[in-house]
């Protein structure tokens, strides 16, 4: 029991490649979650083709993301309130995966940075959720918390599209949610985000979200400096949360209601404040 965390809905473990696998117990659905990075394009900015990846544009140098060499480990903590899987990928990428006893979602608390740049290569880190859903090039992203918009890979509804940049050309803003649907199996997979991020589905059944970027060249769109933020003399470290939530869409109303509640809870999480109290015995508090 020390190699996985589970409840009545899920079974979560780490596979030999160091990726996380989520298996739904009662549904034919599984997800592999992994971290990858893109190398940012660098150019002289003299014309559009030579523009660098920067604050305003995401422009990877290569046609696919690179894998991290897994040098990490994981630890599991189980208790009556929460089960946690502390997963380290390398020195600067790690996460805590949580399942709470009275919640249906899986919480991914990711931590990325400081992104090393000693090799003088700008990097853009993504997390990818790859499922067995048949999605037919289609995924959905929200529009500032309003309606979900249908996105089709390599397609625009009002003109014939020929994408010169197949990765960034398929990236869309994800302000609160990204969704996949398998129309045949009637299965749905969502990730709710705690901040606006870029996201896409570059292969059927998977989606990815941009977590952190550190780039070494200005993109010449006006900011006039590279997206190379530092604090305390090192690159920034970012920590954030994704809620993974999915299953059968038999009862659509209940499903959507749960999703909305969860999204609100993540975006407007209760505030935790402290107050001093003069106590000698906790039993005496009325």
């Amino acid at each position, binding site marked *: 029991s020390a190699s996985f965390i589970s409840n009545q809905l899920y079974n979560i473990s780490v596979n030999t490649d160091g990726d996380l696998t989520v298996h739904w117990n009662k549904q034919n659905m599984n997800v592999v979650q992994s971290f990858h990075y893109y190398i940012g394009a660098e150019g002289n900015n003299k014309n559009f083709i030579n523009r660098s990846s920067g604050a305003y544009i995401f422009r990877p140098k290569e046609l696919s993301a690179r894998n991290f060499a897994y040098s990490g480990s994981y630890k599991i903590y189980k*208790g009556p309130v929460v089960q*946690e899987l502390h997963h380290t990928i390398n020195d600067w990428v790690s996460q805590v995966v949580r399942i709470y006893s009275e919640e249906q979602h899986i919480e991914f608390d990711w931590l990325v940075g400081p992104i090393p740049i000693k090799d003088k290569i700008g990097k853009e880190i993504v997390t990818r959720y790859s499922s067995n859903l048949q999605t037919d090039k289609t995924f959905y992203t929200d529009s500032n918390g309003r309606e979900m918009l249908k996105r089709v890979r390599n397609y625009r509804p009002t003109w014939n599209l020929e994408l010169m940049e197949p990765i960034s050309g398929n990236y869309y803003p994800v302000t609160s949610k990204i969704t996949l649907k398998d129309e045949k199996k009637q299965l749905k997979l969502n990730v709710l985000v705690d901040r606006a991020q870029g996201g896409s589905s570059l292969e059927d059944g998977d989606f990815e979200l941009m977590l952190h970027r550190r780039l070494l060249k200005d993109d010449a769109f006006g900011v006039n400096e590279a997206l190379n933020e530092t604090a305390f*003399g090192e690159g920034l470290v970012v920590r954030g949360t994704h809620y993974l939530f999915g299953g059968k869409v038999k009862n659509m109303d209940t499903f959507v209601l749960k999703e909305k*509640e969860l999204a609100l809870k993540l975006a407007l999480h209760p505030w*935790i404040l*402290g107050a001093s109290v003069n106590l000698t015995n906790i039993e005496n508090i009325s």
Partner: protein
Amino acid sequence: DESLEYFREAMGVMQHHDAVSGTEKQFVANDYSRILYESMDHAGEIISKAIGKWSGMESSTAASFKIFTCLQLNISSCAFSEKSDTFMAVVYNPLSRPVSTYIRVPVQGNSYVVRSLIDGVYPTVQIVPIPEGVQKIPGRKSNATNEVVFRALDIPPFGILAYAIAKKIQENVVEQPQ
């Protein structure tokens, strides 16, 4: 209230498209952090007043009632909770519907008891370690190594729940000679 003026000014500045999208220069980003921090700092008093009034704690504890913000909970750091053996956690729900959620409070010890101040109930508590990666974040000045986790049940809309959190004192067991 004068202290709200800082928030109003911050709201004005933070509507700039660079503040929304994060395309500002580094110096400007630092300035935004300063503006937001100062707004929260000045709001401490008004938050204390409001919560003291709603909860009735202001009158029962007189002038000593003061609320402390934990602005670094995102990196599992809170000077207030990790330095005290006994403290109160006040949970405010900013939504217009009741919410039940899990509360995580960074601490140094490894055994705590939590009691609801509303109904006296003791929620189930679990202590989980803060991951090493988080503890090593540059600039994180915290001695917290664990988090107290418990479920706050049915926090009222725009309302608060308060919990007393105390370190459990390990009783010394004196073994009797046989």
